């Protein structure tokens, strides 16, 4: 169901977004003053409200309960879903030309999936194979100079852009090995449930890690939708630039006129 919905929404973006007119890397080089278009703001705000309701009914209570679990269980769960996401990061490392990091991530995955018992533990870090930034197909498209296009909010999945949503199609077209062995191909060892359960657990883990921050942001925002949009877009730009310092992402001209 979510797959069909995604394809439908994506068709809409591709048909209407302004990706072709993007100035690519220049747009990504700094936090631009020109905001990206919120082409479907009314619809986006509706979906955002729907997502908030889902969050209140499902994710928030689950995350609250999850936070009561002993710390080692939470760490193990977080390691497990993080290890699975490496399968998506590796092909994107390759597509972005980071072959060295792709090699290290592959080694990390092998070590943590075997010695680390299906990724529950992280022995790779102990032997110097530290984790790297997660990558996805949206980031890869961004690093190739594809502009963000319109800002969109996806049901359940949350904030995205036309480019990022289009990029996530790569997951379903053979780019995500975990999706391939669970949903796409009929293997004896895994089922669809394993894929969707891992995504659900990943969502709860994320919500729990950011529990207070999200609640606090919501309480202290006069337009929560706009705050989340700004946070998401700034974070994506930073990830695409693989920026390590604030001076790489901040646009100083923004501040020049302040006296």
């Amino acid at each position: 169901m979510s797959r069909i919905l995604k394809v439908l929404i994506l068709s809409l973006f591709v048909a209407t977004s302004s990706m072709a007119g993007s100035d690519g890397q220049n747009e990504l080089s700094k936090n631009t003053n020109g905001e990206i278009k919120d082409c479907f703001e009314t619809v986006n705000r509706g979906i955002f409200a729907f997502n908030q309701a889902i969050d209140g009914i499902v994710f928030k209570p689950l995350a609250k309960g999850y936070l009561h679990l002993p710390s080692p269980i939470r760490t193990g769960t977080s390691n497990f879903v993080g290890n699975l996401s490496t399968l998506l990061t590796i092909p994107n490392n390759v597509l972005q030309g980071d072959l060295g990091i792709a090699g290290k991530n592959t080694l990390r995955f092998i070590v943590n999936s075997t010695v680390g018992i299906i990724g529950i533990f992280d022995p790779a870090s102990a032997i110097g194979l530290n984790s790297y930034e997660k990558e996805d197909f949206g980031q890869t498209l961004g690093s190739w100079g594809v502009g963000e296009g319109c800002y969109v909010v996806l049901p359940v999945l949350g904030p995205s852009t036309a480019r990022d949503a289009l990029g996530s199609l790569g997951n379903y077209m053979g780019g995500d090995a975990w999706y391939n062995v669970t949903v796409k191909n009929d293997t004896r060892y895994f089922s669809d449930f394993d894929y969707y359960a891992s995504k659900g657990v990943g969502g709860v883990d994320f919500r729990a890690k950011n529990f207070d921050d999200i609640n606090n942001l919501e309480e202290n925002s006069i337009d929560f939708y706009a705050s989340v949009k700004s946070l998401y877009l700034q974070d994506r730009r930073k990830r695409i630039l693989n920026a390590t310092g604030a001076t790489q992402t901040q646009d100083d001209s923004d501040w020049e006129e302040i006296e």
Partner: protein
Amino acid sequence: MLVKKATKLLSVTILSFFFIFNAFSIEPKEFVQQTVDKAAKALDQNLSKDLKISKLKVIALKSVDIRGIGFYSLGKYRKNISDQKKEEYLDIFTKYFLKTFSSRLAQYSDPKIIVNSQKKLNDKYTMVSSTLIATDDKPEVKIDWRVVTKDLDNPLIIDLIIEGVSLAKVQKEEFYSIIQSNDGDINALFKNLKEFVEKD
């Protein structure tokens, strides 16, 4: 003889002024570390939430360029409003800022922040980099501080960039969204800010 004495006195006076003024001059890195230490003290677990909030407000008034953040957050709209409206805005913005600032920080207890380095961006601003040390529940967080260093004797924080996300920019876009969705009417923002400040 009198001229010599007067010259000596003048030199001593000038030197004293020089030392006094320089004694107040502070490196942005040290300024941020001092501010962080003061905030950590204010967030002492033994204090009540109300006391924490009032202490944080005092720190913010001394170390944050609230006026600068306020005008930055208005974006292009600051150019088209009267002086009277600006004053009205600054008054309500200061109240709004102090409420959100103290409320956001009050959730932390005894945060450990280490200031790492500083980089002068231009004559007006210096970026100070720091790290919020990881705890059992939360990972390490990189925090950069944009400090107004136009007047070195009185540096002021104007933005916090948390893991690459500028909080001032988030606020600017939030304000922009409200004004835009009300056909460019800045009074809609004022109304929202007032309602926020007045709610419990």
